[in-house]
């Protein structure tokens, strides 16, 4: 009996329990989870706080939870969105709108051959999501990063349509080995031009790998840093159709101020310029060559997905009309991405196809008289304001009394300079789960570029070589084919408090290049431009008028990485890569690139439990070795015989051949050893978030064309690995949420970078032969000198002027001779060409459906050699050219020096971007779920002491770094943006 009663009692309890459940079912908590566009978010996880109860939203974003409570608190989480916490009252459905992640330590970061939670990162990586990218009329994804990431300098020199900005991660790492970071777009590895194929509005995230412990996984391509772009994918169970557009008006900002016709004549008389040089017109050359430009950017994107399948497709058009007449750019990109699961979800196949077409009409890049060559636009500053544009008969005016006279308006109107490129890449990734935790992967990518550029200089362009040859036409065809194939094994396991994630990859890359060039001269008219070279004059064929080439490079890599963590507190990442590359000398085909880094999540420690200040605290430290090879061209190490102009021998012209380079079988990659220490912190419940990184990176085996003694070398330089250079830096990123509530948020964010570069050594020996390279001129008085930053200015000091108004300079060594040789004691060190610091300030504000954001950025500590100002300041040129208004007070007639009179402070602060947006939520439309309007202003304000057109000139570390030879005009743009999300 006792048993029975016990049984009965048990049943009662059970029925009571059932009753409770029944009661609960009668009072459900329901709601709907939507994204920032009011689109349902299926698969979002809803948890009841304080319990184990959890559910997921269905296809319509709805969820339902039962509880015995009258009110519960739930948290809703979805990848890529901030966790939302809401109170729910039974029987009162709630619409929960999720906000995409702002910066938080829980994001997923793509780290190369895998992903990592941001909280598990041990290296220096900047992760930027959609919200962190600069909005507006973007033509190149790099513009979206400008000012956003510490240690990442984006330099936009002028606003020529189709011209890409340059990017340097943690400064200049190499002299000729290549400073452009590796770009990885959805697994496709490429050079910077790969970014042209990424539609700016289709970027999901950008991850920038900065330190060696992060980039060492890319081995011999990792030294200049890595930019990983991940494009948007469709979420399973979600359909989306979206249209995004931007249209801007682009206007000129600062221009150089020249003498007008009256002022010119006034000065001309003072300087005894003969009246025959005054042709009596009043021409605004700059006005003639410029116009209001425009930029349009349209993207239609759509996608859908079911349980095992999802896809996303988009078509983008970027249309740009430049501020210099006849320069424009069009870029069309179509892409489709599909993911399919199979074999009971063990196999995931992801395919990506991307095809782009771009057409550019570039403004001629290098025209001018012998004394001054720049891009076309800057020739307007040379032209005399008193010169007419046209002759009375309608032909373009030219002055035979001026050597190599150029009529810039004729050049702009008559030169044809077109480039057309077809870009295509396709990828396939297959991941097969073999057993629990073990995945095998295969990835293949194939990228092709077929380009064609045509150039025609008619005689009427007034350019002297075109006049001499009665027209010059040429066509350049080039083809690039890049294949990559990798096989990987990935193993993940947890045992106890240990977590292990290991990956092993074998990778094979082959990149091949071929092309041809043909040129003809002497045309009887200009009708066919470069489209019919056979119409040229056969007797004008000269060596170099036709050529072709083919070469390729191979890279074979073995890659391994282990991520280990203990108790979620102590993190270790170690990677190793062995690369073999065809472009290096036989003695150094293979190189090893190891790295290791550690992190300690201090906030997870029990002793941190009771403090309220730090919500997050992580210390990181790492060391790694990376290499650099992309800047080296194939066949650089081997002695070769190439063609030379013909030689007259044996009574006739015969083919001639020439040993084209000094051989170097020791040619190898540069090795960059980098140590990074960092701390990530969140204070006051992550209201204040920040990171600080310090690093030191030394490039050894520095590739350069080192000076060798001639004799016995037939050439004065040899490409070799000899010197070393160091970069040291400090990077700080901070963001503070001043206001954070349901309706309003205000975040102040910014970053700052200090950077120190020093050339340690340029000398050494090759095969026991001592080298002595130093004081290498890089153009415009900038030099490579041991012990100084690359591109340091070493310059003669201005003193005044003499009785004939010629410039006088300081004779530093007092020997009565001004020696302008590279190592002359009359030169003094006077600042550096690259900035010492850069910073960005990116506040953002939102109130209900209104949002606003700004980007201010700047850099400083650098000098600019204002070569164009020097060129336009000597009155001896007045008879044949114009000069700047600023030349009048200087009153210099002539100078035989390039003195520090033209060396200026290059610091600046730019108000890069202001964006105001308003989202109109549309709840009652059958077709549209939301509409957002925005207004974006770009380059709204520039604060600088620099007197040139724009202080943002080349700082890429190559020749002519820090020299202003005149740029394509920099524009200020105002854009209207529209984003419509359809149902």
């Amino acid at each position, binding site marked *: 009996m006792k048993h029975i009663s016990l049984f009965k009692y048990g049943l009662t309890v059970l029925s009571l329990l059932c009753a409770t459940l029944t009661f609960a079912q009668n009072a459900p908590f329901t709601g709907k989870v939507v994204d920032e566009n009011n689109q349902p978010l299926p698969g979002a996880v809803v948890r009841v706080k304080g319990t184990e109860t959890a559910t997921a939203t269905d296809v319509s974003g709805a969820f339902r939870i039962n509880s015995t409570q009258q009110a519960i608190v739930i948290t809703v989480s979805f990848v890529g969105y901030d966790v939302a916490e809401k109170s729910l009252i039974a029987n009162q459905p709630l619409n929960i709108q999720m906000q995409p992640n702002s910066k938080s330590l829980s994001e997923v970061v793509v780290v190369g051959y895998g992903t990592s939670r941001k909280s598990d990162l041990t290296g220096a990586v900047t992760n930027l999501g959609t919200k962190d990218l600069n909005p507006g009329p973007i033509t190149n994804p790099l513009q979206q990063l400008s000012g956003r990431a510490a240690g990442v300098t984006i330099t936009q020199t002028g606003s020529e349509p189709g011209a890409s900005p340059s990017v340097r991660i943690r400064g200049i790492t190499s002299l000729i080995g290549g400073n452009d970071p590796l770009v990885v777009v959805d697994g496709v590895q490429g050079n910077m031009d790969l970014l042209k194929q990424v539609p700016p509005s289709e970027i999901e995230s950008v991850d920038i790998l900065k330190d060696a412990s992060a980039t060492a996984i890319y081995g011999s391509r990792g030294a200049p840093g890595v930019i990983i772009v991940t494009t948007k994918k469709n979420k399973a169970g979600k359909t989306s159709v979206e249209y995004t557009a931007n249209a801007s008006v682009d206007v000129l900002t600062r221009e150089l101020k020249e003498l007008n016709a009256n002022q010119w004549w006034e000065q001309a008389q003072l300087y005894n310029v003969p009246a025959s040089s005054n042709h009596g017109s009043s021409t605004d050359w700059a006005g003639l060559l410029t116009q209001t430009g425009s930029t349009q950017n349209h993207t239609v994107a759509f996608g859908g997905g079911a349980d095992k399948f999802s896809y996303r497709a988009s078509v983008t058009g970027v249309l740009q009309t430049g501020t210099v007449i006849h320069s424009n750019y069009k870029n069309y990109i179509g892409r489709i991405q599909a993911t399919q699961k199979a074999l009971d979800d063990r196999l995931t196949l992801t395919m990506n196809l991307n095809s782009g077409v771009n057409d550019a009409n570039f403004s001629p890049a290098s025209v001018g008289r012998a004394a001054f060559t720049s891009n076309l636009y800057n020739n307007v500053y040379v032209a005399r304001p008193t010169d007419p544009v046209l002759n009375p008969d309608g032909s373009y005016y030219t002055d035979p009394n001026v050597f190599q006279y150029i009529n810039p308006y004729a050049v702009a109107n008559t030169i044809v300079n077109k480039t057309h490129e077809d870009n295509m890449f396709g990828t396939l990734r297959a991941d097969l789960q073999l057993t629990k935790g073990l995945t095998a992967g295969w990835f293949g990518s194939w990228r092709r570029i077929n380009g064609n550029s045509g150039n025609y200089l008619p005689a009427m362009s007034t350019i002297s070589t075109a006049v001499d040859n009665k027209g010059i036409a040429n066509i350049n065809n080039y083809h690039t084919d890049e294949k990559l194939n990798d096989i990987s094994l990935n193993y993940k396991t947890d045992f106890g408090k240990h977590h292990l994630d290991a990956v092993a990859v074998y990778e094979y890359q082959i990149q091949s290049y071929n092309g041809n060039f043909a040129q003809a001269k002497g045309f009887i008219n200009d009708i066919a431009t470069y489209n019919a070279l056979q119409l040229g004059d056969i007797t004008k064929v000269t060596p170099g008028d036709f050529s072709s080439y083919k070469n390729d490079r191979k890279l074979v890599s073995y890659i391994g990485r282990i991520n280990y963590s203990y108790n979620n507190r102590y993190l270790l990442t170690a990677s190793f890569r062995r690369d073999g590359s065809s472009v290096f000398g036989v003695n150094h085909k293979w190189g090893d690139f190891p790295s290791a880094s550690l992190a300690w999540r201090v906030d997870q420690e029990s002793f941190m439990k009771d403090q309220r200040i730090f919500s997050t605290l992580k210390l990181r430290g790492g060391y790694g070795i990376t290499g650099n090879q992309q800047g080296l061209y194939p066949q650089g190490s081997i002695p070769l015989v190439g063609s030379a102009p013909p030689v007259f021998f044996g009574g006739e012209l015969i083919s001639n051949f020439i040993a084209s380079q000094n051989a170097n079988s020791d040619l190898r990659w540069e090795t960059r050893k980098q140590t990074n220490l960092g701390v990530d912190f969140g204070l006051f419940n992550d209201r204040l978030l920040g990171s600080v990184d310090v690093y030191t990176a030394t490039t050894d085996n520095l590739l350069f064309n080192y000076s060798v003694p001639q004799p016995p070398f037939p050439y004065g330089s040899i490409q070799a690995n000899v010197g070393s250079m160091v970069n040291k830096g400090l990077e700080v990123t901070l963001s503070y949420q001043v206001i954070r509530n349901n309706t309003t948020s205000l975040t102040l964010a910014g970053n700052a970078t200090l950077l120190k570069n020093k050339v340690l050594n340029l000398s050494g020996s090759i095969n026991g032969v001592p080298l*002595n390279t130093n004081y290498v001129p890089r153009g415009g008085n900038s030099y490579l000198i041991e012990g100084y930053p690359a591109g340091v200015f070493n310059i003669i000091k201005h003193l005044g002027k003499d009785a004939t108004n010629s410039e006088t300079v300081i004779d530093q060594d007092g020997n009565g001779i001004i020696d302008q040789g590279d190592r002359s004691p009359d030169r003094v060190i006077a600042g550096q060409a690259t900035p010492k610091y850069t910073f960005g300030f990116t506040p953002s504000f939102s109130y209900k459906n209104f949002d606003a954001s700004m980007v201010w950025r700047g850099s400083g500590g650098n000098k600019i050699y204002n070569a164009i100002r020097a060129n336009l300041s000597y009155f001896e040129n007045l008879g044949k050219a114009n000069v700047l208004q600023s030349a009048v007070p200087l009153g210099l007639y002539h100078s035989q020096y390039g003195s520090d009179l033209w060396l200026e402070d290059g610091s600046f602060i730019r108000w890069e971007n202001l964006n105001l947006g308003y989202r109109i939520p549309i709840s009652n439309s059958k077709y549209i779920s939301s509409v957002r309007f925005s207004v974006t202003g770009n380059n709204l304000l520039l604060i600088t002491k620099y007197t040139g057109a724009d202080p943002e000139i080349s700082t890429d570390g190559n020749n002519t770094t820090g020299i202003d030879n005149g740029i394509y005009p920099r524009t200020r743009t105002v854009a209207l943006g529209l984003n419509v999300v359809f149902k």
Partner: protein
Amino acid sequence: MKKILTSILIIGLAAQSCTKVNENVYDKYSSKEFYASPQGADVALANVYSQVGGNWNGVGYAGADNGWYDLNSFSSDEQVIPHRRTGDWQLDFAQLYQRQWLPSMGIISNTWNWLYKSVYTANLAVDLLETSKADPAKIAEARVIRAFFYYLLIDDFGNVPFYTDNNITVDKLPQVDRKTVYDFIVKELTENVDKLSETKGGEYYGRFNKWAGYALLAKVYLNAEVYTGTPKWTECLAACNKIAQGGFSLHPGAANPASPLGYQYYELFGDKNPTDETILSMFVTVDIVSRNILTIRSLNGPNFNAVYGFSGWNGSIIPQEFYEKFADNDIRKKQFLIGAQPGGVNYTAEVSSLDDPGAFPDEGVRDTKFVPVLPMNGGGASNDFPIYRYADIMLMQAECNVRLGNAPAAKPFVDAVRQRAGLGALGADPTLIDVYNERGFELNWEGHRRQDMIRFNTFTLAHGFVPAVGDFRKLFPIPTSALNTNTNLKQNPGYN
């Protein structure tokens, strides 16, 4: 576990097939294979001649700018490029004329680098031809042309690095005194000139045949006293007499409306140098092999444009003092332009300033010795350039005779050259000054003047409006770039 092993196996297999990273070359020849072929050895010799043609970047013997020709011409009294008040022309050329050059001057390092690349190329040719057991005449030719480059090196720089094996490393590369290199040159020439072909023109146009070889030997002997302190007038005379056996004569100088400037004399400086007088030529076809800028560089833009259709460079001029030495009836004076010219320019003899503030655009007498021939463009014309011609040899014969105390024997040589130029015979036996002046008239702008001035001890004297300079200027400094890369090199005295 089996699956893991299988996949590792697959990866291993795949990896095995693609681990080679050898370089493939598709569009060039590997130098090892190329030079091992008989064609390669021939090309190696032809390649040495490709060093002779003048081209941009200071390369070559003559015809283009910023190289050997400019260094050896503008440092003399026969031509100068003034800086112009209109801002044209850098000061290097005026500084050469004023004899104020510094070791860092680009024209000096261009010359040095060109000469040593030429030596390298010649060493390579000698080596390859000997290895492939080529025709002894070709080996001799390569050795002679190498001697030619070393002769130019000691003439400009004195004690110079010396090597004949391209595999030498710089630490084993000695800087040899001028006399030792002189001895080497003499030895190479005396051993090899007789092996050279006697063919004139045709296959040997622009090449060292036997007569060009002797002309070079004669030049070396002519300046032996400058190089070594020991004169070799007799030897020079003997070498010149050898050339006379080659059947050379002075090209006619008579008036002829079809000839450039109306005289047959100027055919010597035309498209092809006539082989009756020319011993060694530099072949030119603009933009294909070399170029000749000497006239376009001289004339003012509108003047050259009006006559030839291209804008002149308004550069090199004849200094007034030099111009005024020419007799008015000398047909060689016809090469100069002064006064009003087509294109509305008016050249004047006087030059107000060479550097600061510079000369006015029309100042200075211009030279059209090389009346431009087609093909031509704004970058020069196609006139061949005479390196050695018989008039030069005849004046050398005259000089040697005078110096050996046999002035009467010198007279016919000088008279022949004068009479061809429309002048009368000398009234008396020639003096050294007569020979020196005649060389100036006959050979102006042909690259001989600096050497002649040094030999006649006039180089450092004041002339025109430039003052006298120290004797050390008789040698150019070793360029800074060479000193920097080879710390064992010793700079010439006076330049430290």
